[in-house]
């Protein structure tokens, strides 16, 4: 359990760092929105809006995870429940059937690729975002079906 406690501590540091980066990028995005040129297109606005939304989601999710992990670290039972949840054989099977964690990794990579591609070609941006949404929806569907069947 001590090993897991160290792992949780490391996760708290990582999530705190992510929150700080997201807040810094969010503040930058808010100020950069004021300097929008008059000839800016709607798609350019959509991409920057998407980036802002993504940054805010990452920040909020990281903050929530910091609070959750801190609570678990201060309570032995909550820590054990968290450990059991992560090492539960049934959940591991369900996750693997739903294509996790590979699907999450490819989704993150595709979102990064979409943001970069968005600066050059808006069609590629929409296609990649649609593909990510589709694969996440399929994975969530499979997970839901497996959870009710197993």
């Amino acid at each position, binding site marked *: 359990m001590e090993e897991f406690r160290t792992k949780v501590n490391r996760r708290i540091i990582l999530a705190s760092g992510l929150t700080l980066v997201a807040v810094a990028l969010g503040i930058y995005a808010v100020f950069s929105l004021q300097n929008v040129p008059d000839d800016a297109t709607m798609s350019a606005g959509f991409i920057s809006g998407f980036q802002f939304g993504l940054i805010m989601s990452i920040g909020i999710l990281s903050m929530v995870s910091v609070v959750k992990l801190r609570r678990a670290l201060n309570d032995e039972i909550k820590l054990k429940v968290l450990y*059991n949840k992560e090492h539960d*054989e*049934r959940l591991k099977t369900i996750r693997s059937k739903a294509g996790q964690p590979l699907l999450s990794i490819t989704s993150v990579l595709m979102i990064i690729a979409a943001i970069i591609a968005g600066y050059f070609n808006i069609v590629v941006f929409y296609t990649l975002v649609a593909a990510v949404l589709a694969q996440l929806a399929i994975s969530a569907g499979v997970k839901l079906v497996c959870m009710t069947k197993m």
Partner: protein
Amino acid sequence: MKTRIKELRKKRKLSQEELALEVGTTRQTITSIEVGKYTASLVLAYKIAHYFGLTIEEVFDFSNANEF
């Protein structure tokens, strides 16, 4: 697969959550095993049986084992 987990749990006035915590699994997994939706691995079956001080065969019913 049929099991005696629910019966043994009731005898000890133990909740699914408490048993899950003791054997290192989640409450949902205990529910699934009890209703026969999920077949526990050998390790988990051993942990559950060991917790109740019984053998695996005394907790899990292997009469339909050929179906698996």
